[in-house]
């Protein structure tokens, strides 16, 4: 299969390209014009474009059988993220609609779910966030990106799969939001026994390629998380130990953190009404979306695709921190 990968120069994109090549696919990797192309094998065709501004994206789809759409912004303010994630996707899919390509794997995120309404286990049945504008720029952009993908798919009768990975981590990207917050030398963990929805970058890439290849993935939405039951304290401890980060790890029960956020929100409402603004850590719904203690199921992807993570947590740790002195 010839596969076009958008966002190929990104953290996950590089692994997806490697995984596709490993499994014998031809790859056209879309990389931003000023970015350095990763060290891919020669057969990887690099297509230079920035989805926000590139005038003619149509040639990117020439001769392509399927698309894995990864392009999205993970940094920047709300408007920059919207432009890089949503408007870029809109332009990308407009070009795709003019091509003959019908197969699309879209990479979304667990942030699109309403974490406040999630019961004990988050799975594909968890309701989608219905008040996106109360959340951060990344959440707004990922929700809108999914909306756009679904609309285009419906309008053009595309065969799509939506993948929603958890926290993607790996070499060079070991820090994740759910770890807590650093205040000087103090590392505050909110809910040290909370399970983390981890998806190691190699496992995640492998899963996306499996979804692309499998006919049973067609029209489906999957959450992508690894199978190991990893808790916050365990992850943070390994991180601190392996990166030799000095500082004190301070566990704080989740409900204490949430209580503080609720108290701050209550005070803000009383003083300033609905217009009051608080940092995300003191905004209850945003706090929940980062730290709520839930179980994260990958049973759908295991059942439908027969997929299993290639590497265990311990193997991923070894691979991710291979450059660190342990």
């Amino acid at each position: 299969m010839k596969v076009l990968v958008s966002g190929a120069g990104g953290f996950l994109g590089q692994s997806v390209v490697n995984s596709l090549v490993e499994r014998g696919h031809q790859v056209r990797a879309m990389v931003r014009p000023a970015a350095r192309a990763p060290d891919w094998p020669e057969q990887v065709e690099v297509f230079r474009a920035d989805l926000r501004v590139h005038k003619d994206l149509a040639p990117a789809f020439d001769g392509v059988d399927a698309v894995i759409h990864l392009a999205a912004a993970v940094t920047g303010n709300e408007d920059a993220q919207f432009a890089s994630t949503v408007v870029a996707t809109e332009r990308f899919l407009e070009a795709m609609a003019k091509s003959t390509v019908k197969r699309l794997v879209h990479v979304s995120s667990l942030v699109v779910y309403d974490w406040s309404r999630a019961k004990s286990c988050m799975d594909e049945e968890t309701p989608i966030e219905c008040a996106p504008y109360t959340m951060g720029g990344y959440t707004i952009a990922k929700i809108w990106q999914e909306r756009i993908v679904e609309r285009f798919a419906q309008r053009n009768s595309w065969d799509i799969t939506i993948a929603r990975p958890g926290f993607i981590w790996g070499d060079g990207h070991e820090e994740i939001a759910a770890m807590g917050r650093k205040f000087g030398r103090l590392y505050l963990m909110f809910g040290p026994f909370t399970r983390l929805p981890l998806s190691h970058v190699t496992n995640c890439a492998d899963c996306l390629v499996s979804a692309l290849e499998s006919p049973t993935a067609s029209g489906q939405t999957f959450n992508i998380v690894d199978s190991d039951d990893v808790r916050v304290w365990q992850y943070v401890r390994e991180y601190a130990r392996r990166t030799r980060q000095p500082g004190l790890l301070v566990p704080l029960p989740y409900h204490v953190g949430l209580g503080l956020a609720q108290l701050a929100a209550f005070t803000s409402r009383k003083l300033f009404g609905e217009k009051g603004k608080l940092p995300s850590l003191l905004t209850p719904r945003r706090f929940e979306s980062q730290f709520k203690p839930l179980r994260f199921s990958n049973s759908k992807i295991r059942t439908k695709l027969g997929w299993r993570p290639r590497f265990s947590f311990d193997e991923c740790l070894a691979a991710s921190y291979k450059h660190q002195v342990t």
Partner: protein
Amino acid sequence: MKKLSGVLIGCGAIAREHLTALAELDNVEVSGVCDISSARAEAMAERFQVPKFYTNHRDLLDELKPDLVHITTPPASHLPIAMDCLERGLNVFCEKPMTVQYADFCLLKDKAIAKGTMLMENQQNRFHSSVRRILQLIETGELGDVLDVQICLSLNITGPNSAYTDMNAPHFGMTLPGGVIGDFLPHIAYLAYMFTGKALAVNAVWTKHTKCTPLPADEFRGLIKGERTTAFVSFSGNAQPDGFLIRVIGTRMRVEANLYEPPKVVSKRLRKGEPALMTVVDGIAEARQVLTGSIGGFVRKLAGQSSYDGMKDMLAATYRSIELKQPQPISLQELDEIAQLADQLSATAKP
């Protein structure tokens, strides 16, 4: 009473500030928004409960016939969009810079005069609480005669991940005379103009401190001789922390404010008495102003007030003049002289 209707063309970051301010005006309702990105227009409409969104601004103008059109697109598109509005006899409130070239401003001005419509540029800092406080000190005579004005804008446009130096999607400011700094010159120009009056002579120096960026220059220093006084103006793309400082020097008082930190205004006045004692009195007075201003600023942030101090008041004044059929808050003559000043400043960037 029937509300005035406003529409926005362009749904980027600045549009959100307009809509936030408009939501606080009781006599205005936003009837539509427009953007070439359907998703961006729809998202903005959904967020601010605007009933209609469009991807073609002419469709919006023809269908909604609003009382005021806010143009919040990148500067290169202002001229054709504003012309479309004026041709239809619609009032225009345009983001700065209204046009890329001064000659284009003249085209719009002539059209607005011919059609009898309003043509305004967003100069929200004229309505900034700190600027109004300074003006009040001048009007009451407390500051004395204004001898000099200093306007110094520092913004980290050269740092990592800066949108201004993005090599993949060049910032729209790169199309302006003077590059990205040209995008900030209108703010500097109208603030200086408020004190200097019409510019009689302009001198400026442009340099590049950070070499590895596509910016033609990232530092700017200018000197303006105006009808009433002089102004030193500057922009730094490297100085940190970010700040938008305005200092007015009078014969009786010095007053300064950081427009990024309202409502903090610090003044130092001429006092009679033992100099050593007066230094202490000055210090205490200054400390009190800093403390009250800093706490006020913190509370403003918690209260969710817009960081664009002055935007709401400027929009309120604009809509009020439409409602009462009064002259626009900033006359076309003034806008013209400010556009000329900005043009003179940016012209110094040419090799």
